[in-house]
């Protein structure tokens, strides 16, 4: 399986996927950490994939979305954005709406 197939499979078989540096428990980059906080706050279940585990993955994800930076958030197979966009959408209440529209928000109560 090529790296592009691997990424495509992850994106399409998980409702919410975050490609990030580090893990949701231990983010290794402030930008990745911000999205983790937002997703945790919204109480949405997601899969975190650590791009630091493989250079092939780290470069492959940039090509996949034609997006030069990490983190990258995908919802229902669709690229939502990187840190700036996700934060902006969260602050405007749009992210919660997108998740709700797709039947994803509030599966778990927000812990904060």
């Amino acid at each position, binding site marked *: 399986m090529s790296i592009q197939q691997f990424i495509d499979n992850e994106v399409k078989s998980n409702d919410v996927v975050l490609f990030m540096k580090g893990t949701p428990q231990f983010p290794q980059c402030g930008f990745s950490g911000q999205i983790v906080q937002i997703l945790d706050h919204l109480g949405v279940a997601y899969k975190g994939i650590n791009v630091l585990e493989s250079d092939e993955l780290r470069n492959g994800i*940039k090509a996949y979305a*034609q*997006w*030069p*930076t990490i983190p990258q958030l995908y919802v229902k197979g669709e*690229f*939502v*954005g*990187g*840190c*700036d*966009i996700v934060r*902006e*959408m969260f602050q405007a209440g749009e992210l919660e709406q997108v998740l709700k529209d797709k039947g994803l928000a509030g599966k778990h109560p927000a812990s904060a």
Partner: protein
Amino acid sequence: MPMDANEIERLIKSRIPDADVTIRDLAGDGDHYAATVIAESFRGKSRVQQHQLVYEALKGQMGGALHALALQTGIPNT
């Protein structure tokens, strides 16, 4: 090698001529910038598409010479 703020603005405007570009050097080290790009030509485009246009303008410098660029895009308030 850090990038000059004027150079960033020039690259963005060369790709998006109607852009109103504001750049702040966040850390004063020529390496961490925040840019706001407002353009009428963004109208009808998603945020992802707007950001992709800006990244395209920066010709692959993003993630390379340009370590961190916090980006905000939008259309002018009329």
